[in-house]
């Protein structure tokens, strides 16, 4: 089980409390597809992904980004059992979606950058530490049921 200090929990929930899940989710997913274009391989049915502008404005990207970040919220609510929280999702990503777990790490790093751009100087080094730790734990949990 992952150990979270009181300070880390506080930093995580105080940031999360101010996050617009729809906006941040859409932005994080769009940036993933733009910065690491090979990740588009999982979204061939999303329509127009031909340019950064197309990706940013794509309604399927926005909707899926919101879905992904909403699911991330489950981790924030269940810091003491992230493994259990993502057990089924892990199986899904392996067996149905066939997503290389490296992509979870890429998305996690992008999410941290999106948070930094939204919170500016309030996204302190201590904040970054807590959030990089969280995205790493989530990535690990999503990869855990792979076989």
């Amino acid at each position: 089980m992952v150990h979270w200090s009181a300070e880390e929990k506080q930093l995580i929930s105080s940031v999360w409390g101010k996050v617009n899940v729809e906006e941040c989710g859409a932005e994080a997913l769009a940036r993933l597809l733009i910065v690491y274009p090979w990740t588009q391989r999982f979204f061939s049915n999303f329509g127009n992904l031909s340019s950064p502008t197309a990706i940013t404005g794509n309604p399927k990207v926005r909707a899926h980004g919101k879905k992904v970040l909403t699911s991330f919220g489950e981790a924030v609510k269940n810091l003491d059992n992230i493994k259990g929280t993502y057990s089924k999702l892990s199986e899904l990503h392996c067996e149905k979606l066939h997503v290389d777990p490296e992509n979870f790490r890429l998305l996690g790093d992008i999410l941290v950058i999106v948070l930094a751009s939204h919170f500016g100087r309030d996204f302190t080094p201590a904040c970054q530490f807590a959030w990089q730790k969280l995205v790493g734990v989530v990535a690990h949990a999503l990869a855990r049921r792979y076989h």
Partner: protein
Amino acid sequence: MVLSGADKNNVKGVFAKIGGQAEDYGAETLERMFATYPQTKTYFPHFDLAKGSAQVKGHGKKVAAALVEAANHIDDISGALSKLSDLHAQKLRVDPVNFKLLGQCFLVVVASRNPSLLTPEVHASLDKFLCAVGTVLTAKYR
């Protein structure tokens, strides 16, 4: 990975905007890296790594200067950083994985200080640039 003309312009634009604050960006990048990835501290047992450390500031200035130099010679990064590449291969031998960690922290600093500067396109270009720098610095490792 190849930097397109647009990538090069985006990167030059970032460093033009950062300008004289590059040293501060460098120092904050290191501060964040040591805080976020404690294993990176193992390369600096001889440093005072407390917040505000003069040694970290000084080293941040060096790191920033190297990035600026690479951006100013973006058509020949391996030429521009050749001596630094030798240094990292022969003396420093920083594990290659750490350059990604430094890059992530630099992006976080740019994002937090200048969110409007880091559009998705610029983010992509800057990430590619930082990867290219890391590749050059580890090119002579073996």
